[in-house]
């Protein structure tokens, strides 16, 4: 899908009026005094995080019973958040790895923050399987295939074990990928700072000097990691979807789940990238770098995945009906009309209907409207997971065991807390790291000595040739 975006087209239209030192100065402005709104945002996020830590501590000590969910819903908001955050994580790697391999130049302005988002989102995701077990000290140890005297091994048939591998691999590769991209930029910061800061950044940049030899290895390694990360984009959410698809619950046990989940993940990820870029762009005055064209490209990707998700929703219903399976169809009917229909329709409208407005180029380029739609898509994607988990579990096979669920205080606080965790890390990133990849921006800038001032065509072309 990504190859449909003509990468050169974007670099063509970008009108750069900056010099390389402008790039350094203007992007690294965040390392100095940020906008006051930064501190407000950080305080709010930290507060949410600390509250949630308190709640998690309490439930770890007292018991999972403090949460509001109960049989037949053995999973509820905990796993909703897990899947939601794993999904968010997807866009980062997609943008940085797949679009890198396809040479989509528009990614160069957004990939750094998207990758950071991935790292933090996966961290948020990893928290939930841990805390939802109630006794994380047992779970964290036994869920891993560690050697032990009892010769107890993990069950490789269980999707939860695949989850452990998928998430940890994904996190490791994403982290390496992100950090590798950071190295030249950290070196730039090192070169521009003094004293203790210089020491720290120097340490983090691993002695980067920007020699040709280093660039050569860097490029090769970066490409390699991109290739390694690419299948992970598809595999991680497929594995997460198997958490559901491998059981026999109606509404879970369907073969469409892997592609449907991957598309949904990219949808939510891209929407989250957009949601994050808009305030960051304002807060750190990066409007000159993150151009409307880049934002539009992001929206187009979101729109594409939204239509895929729309199709998946429709085909899920069709298959449920066509299968003739009473249990399956009863569940889908109830999703749309039963006690959880609010969540269902919120999901449909947010993920499928509202994004349709983006078919209009005017709306696509209207940042305010698009921002609202992107936030709604994020809401919709959270509800999608909620909907899948709650409505399938609440009323499954035996009517005698049916139950009902509405989130309670603990669910809400800990969910908000996961956003707190995410934003604390993201804002720290915004404060101490280059939000836009300096080195990659420089790559798509016109050659300093080019006659075609501000024209990207030649620059991009020659860069491509250079490989």
């Amino acid at each position, binding site marked *: 899908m990504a190859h449909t975006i003509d990468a050169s087209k974007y670099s063509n239209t970008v009108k750069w009026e900056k010099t390389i030192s402008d790039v350094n100065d203007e992007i690294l402005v965040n390392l100095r005094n940020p906008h006051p709104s930064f501190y407000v945002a950080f305080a709010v996020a930290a507060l949410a995080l600390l509250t949630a830590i308190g709640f998690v501590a309490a439930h770890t000590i*007292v*018991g*999972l*019973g*403090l949460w*509001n969910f*109960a*049989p*037949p819903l*053995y*999973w509820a908001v905990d796993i909703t958040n897990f899947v939601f955050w794993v999904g968010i994580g997807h866009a980062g790697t997609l943008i940085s790895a797949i679009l890198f391999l396809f040479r989509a130049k528009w990614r160069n302005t957004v990939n750094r923050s998207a990758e950071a988002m991935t790292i933090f989102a996966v961290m948020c995701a990893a928290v939930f*399987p841990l805390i*939802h*077990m*109630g*006794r994380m000290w*047992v*779970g964290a140890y*036994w*869920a891993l295939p560690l050697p032990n005297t009892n010769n*107890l*091994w*993990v*069950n490789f*048939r*269980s*999707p*939860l*074990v695949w989850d*452990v591998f998928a998430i940890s691999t994904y996190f490791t590769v994403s982290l390496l990928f992100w950090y590798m991209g950071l190295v030249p930029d950290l070196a730039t910061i090192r070169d521009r700072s003094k004293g203790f800061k210089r020491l720290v950044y120097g340490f983090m940049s691993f002695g980067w000097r920007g020699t040709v030899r280093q660039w050569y290895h860097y490029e090769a390694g970066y490409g390699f990691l991109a290739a390694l990360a690419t299948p992970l984009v598809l595999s991680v959410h497929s594995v997460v979807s198997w*958490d559901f698809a*491998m*059981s*026999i*619950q109606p509404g879970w046990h369907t073969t469409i789940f892997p592609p449907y989940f991957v598309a949904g993940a990219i949808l939510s990820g891209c929407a989250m990238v957009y949601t994050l870029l808009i305030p960051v762009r304002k807060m750190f005055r990066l409007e000159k770098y993150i151009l409307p064209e880049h934002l539009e490209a992001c929206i187009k990707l979101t729109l594409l995945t939204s239509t895929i998700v729309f199709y998946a929703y429709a085909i899920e219903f069709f298959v449920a009906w066509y299968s003739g399976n*009473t*249990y399956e*169809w*009863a*569940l889908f*009917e*109830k999703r749309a009309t039963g*006690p959880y229909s609010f969540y269902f329709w919120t999901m449909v409208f947010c993920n499928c209907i509202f994004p349709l407005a983006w078919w209009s180029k005017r709306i696509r380029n209207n940042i305010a409207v698009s921002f609202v739609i992107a936030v709604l898509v994020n809401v919709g994607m959270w509800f999608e997971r909620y909907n899948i988990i709650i409505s399938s*579990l609440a*009323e*499954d*096979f*035996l*009517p*005698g*065991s*049916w*139950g*009902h669920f*509405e989130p*309670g*205080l603990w669910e809400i606080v800990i969910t908000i807390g996961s956003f707190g965790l995410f934003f604390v890390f993201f804002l720290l990133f915004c404060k101490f790291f280059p939000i836009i990849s300096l080195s990659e921006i420089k790559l798509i800038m016109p050659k300093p000595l080019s006659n075609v001032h501000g024209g990207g065509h030649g620059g991009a072309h020659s860069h491509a040739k250079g490989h």
Partner: protein
Amino acid sequence: MTINNMESGKKGFAIETDERGPVVFGPVDGPFERPAEKMVEGNLYMETEEVVPEVAPRESEAEQKDAARKALAMNIDRRDFLKLFGATAVASSAACVRRPAEKAIPYVNQPVDFVPSVGNEYATTCGECAAGCGVVVRTLEGRPVKIEGNREHPISQGGTCTLGQAALQGLYHLERRKGPSIKRANRVDNLAWDDVYELLAKDFAGKKVGILTGGSTGNRHQFYREWLRAIGSSESRLYTYESNALYATMAQAHAIAFGFEALPRIDLRQVNTVVGIGSDFLDVGVSPVYFAKSFSEARSLKGGKMARLVQFESAMTITGGRADERHVIAPNAELITTLLLMKSLSDRADAKGSANAKAIARKILATNANVISGGYEAVGVEKSVFDALATDMIRSQSVLFAGGSHSFDDQATSLQVATIVVNELVGAYGTALMIDRGWMVSPVKAGDMKRFVDDARGLDALVIIDTNPAFTLPASFGFDALVKKIPLMVSMQTQPVETDDLATYVLPLNHYLESWGDEQPAAGFWSARQPAVLATTDSRQAEDALLWIAAHMKRPMPYSDYRAYIRERWKAVAALVDSKGDFDNFFNAVLRRGFVGKLASRPADSLRDVASSVKAAKLPAAGTLRLLAPIDVRLNDGRGANKPVLQETGDAMTTIAWDTWVALNPGTAKKMGLRRNDLLKVETDAGTVEAALYPLPGVHPDAVVIHRGNGHAKHVSKISGGNGVNPLALFAKATDAATGMPVTSGATVKLASTGKIFQLAAMQKHNDLANRHDIVKKLSVAKAAEKMAKVQNLDDVPDLYPSLYDNAEYRWGLSVDLTKCTGCGACQVACAQENNVPQVGREQVNLHRVMHWIRLDRYFEGDTNNPQVSIQPMMCQQCSHAPCEAVCPVFATTHHEEGINSMTYNRCIGTRYCANACPYKVRRFNWWTHKWNTIGDRLQDRNIRALNPDVTVRTRGVMEKCNFCFQRIRDAKHTAKVQIRKVMDGEIRTACEQVCPSDAIVFGNLKDPNSRVSKLRADGRSYLALGGDPEAKEFGLKTLPNVSYMAHVSHREGFGESLHSEHGAPGSHNTDAKTETHGNQEEHKGH
């Protein structure tokens, strides 16, 4: 190998066969071979001298007393407790002989017959109600850990009811009083027992002392009479009271009709039609386990036939839920209904019964002609129904049961008399009802309540023994006022009750598991009671205390203790059964077996002219709401209310635990604009209570049903205090003239919403089958008979995998007969006791976090005024292709080679994926560490001492579920291995199978084609839950459970044919029967 040499009947102790046919009153030999008992080589002690271990050198009496006092005064910790009890209980009851061994003996001197961790079983007689079921108590290290029905005992036949099963929670109840106390002026002082005897001896001297006690059929009442005489009071001052008025009214009616007080003994095996008019014989009745066993026998489909149950009732009872034909009648119309049935019978020329009976019937009908003519309309049932029923009853063998706890009105005795006449007309006496041979002894004397009210003013002192009239009598009955006039009151109770508040002396009594005694459930048939443990608190047996008081009065009775008295009385029993040997040997042998006797016979009486005793009141007026207050199946009249396991079992029809609810016809509720959980003000002339509404299908539109049992005073128990309300507060003073029993039904009520909502702890949120066909399968009798003829292999399912069981010796399986299951809940209680399943309290129940390993799913179908009821016990199905096993990341749940989904509790990390994957939702997660002595803020009486040491106790974060009582399987396999043989069929009984009063559950080895469970699984009626329709080559989920269900078979018209069309689309909610899935978080938010 002899399976059981006590069975042969030659030894002098067995029940004789009846000349009417095969063993009429004996263990029913069921549809299968009688399973093996525990195999023990050698003699069964029947004729050998008892070997009693000499446990310690004798000491002087003073030393012994001193030691005993010290032992009791010690602050005993668990370990010491185990040692002490292990030793003392064994010493006291080893070989069922009590010896004064009061010294703690360490295990280094291991007593004979005692192996740590191997249970000793003692036969005794249940004392929870007056039915006198024989039970076997399993003790481990001297602690009773499980009560089971005595399988040889003809009353219990191995089953117990919920109440009987929960007795252990009574024994170990943390709220039992620690010692006697006296109320002086305005303070309460603790006393030593010696002081109690001294003081009471003075108080009683020369006074008119009376005793008020609960029902009993044994020697207890006779002892009280003798004691009263011994201390100089009068024998006639013994008053008996049971809140189940069926005893008194039936006894009284038989006294009127046949001249002697008794209850007929039933035998339903040959009966084709059982008719119930307001009867609750499967709920509480007179002997619920015995009735359920007998009814279950009648309901076995034999030769394509099974008995039909026709029920007329205005409440929705368990009995009504089982009915093939259920007619909803107006409240308090039971007598009129019986008369209408009598009329239809009498109109037929071929009616059975003597000419005398027919004449009496005609006379009764003539007296009540005015009521009968308008009766059909008032009752709400057409004449054709009665005519058809009359034809059926006369042509086949039939019996009528009438009256139950929800229909005790001022005509209760008349109703019983009319019932006797009807039963004469259908020829039930002599076939289904026995009054001439081994009739049931009435536990109470019929007119006692009337006598008590008359005499109370004249009494100087009243001793109340183990009954709680302050709670179980309606306030308007004026019990408080009556006893306040008595200068001295002594309350002797096993557990704190409301009656204690009225007493000067409050004396703690031994639990029945700590007591000696006997019961005589059927005339001539004796059931022995012996202690299974020494008194766990400083309590005494009531009779022993009375003996000491008499001794202190210098008017001693010639017995050292009550055991001596029992022995004395049993000499007559020994003579009765022609025991010629040594009496000690006889006595010990009886204690070992639990019962003995020879059914008494008497010449059959002819019916007396009872016409004058049956006079129906005027027709019930339609449209006025009337209150019915049935006795709760679980809590009985309130005596079970302080046991959390009973509170949490949940009512069969509403599934409500912990609370009291107002059951109302859904249509009436709708008309009044009331919804489920609306807190109602229920008002009568006599009082007001507030309770929440549960619209219950099947209740008559004019009936308001509020169960008794809850509504105890706060200070009485932390378990029951503040739970629900007591509907008896709503009845104005009225009594049944013939017996003096208070009226507990029919009060005109006004209902008004208080505008508040009270979330009833109903465990089931959805009440119909939502159009699903492979959950509860239903068959008409004809279809069932057809299917039964075919043998099927439920495991013959196309499968990619090789069979799991080729190499195993056993494959455990369970079969549940949905036709027999009544929903009484005994299996839930038994399971909780056996497997240390915690109770979670009402807040957690409301969150759906009950821990029951066996759930009773109840489904309504059809007309909300008269629904079909199906009950489905749902436990782990032990799937061969278990969805739970594949998804566990750490192998905490794995497949045992013998077909069980094993749980490794300490491997579980709590991902709960298994529970999500389970299509039956039978896995239970420990959301908390359930403290063994608290439920939330409530004290839990599940004493840590009552835990079954064979079963691991689970902490929070761990998944648990039914595992077919694996500890029992392991024990049996171990025994078999030692004896170099295979485990025999019936040797292992899971707790649920063992307890089931309806024999609905059968466990066994599926690898053995001759095992009972194999045969049932091969029966054409069997199916696998969620197993699709194998006949149509549609195999559902293909989980291949080792639990199979036998389709619900009923004579109901159109049964087994789809009723779903009226519900619309699959999964849609039934409008009225549906109880909406409210958010149930209100109570929980506080956490």
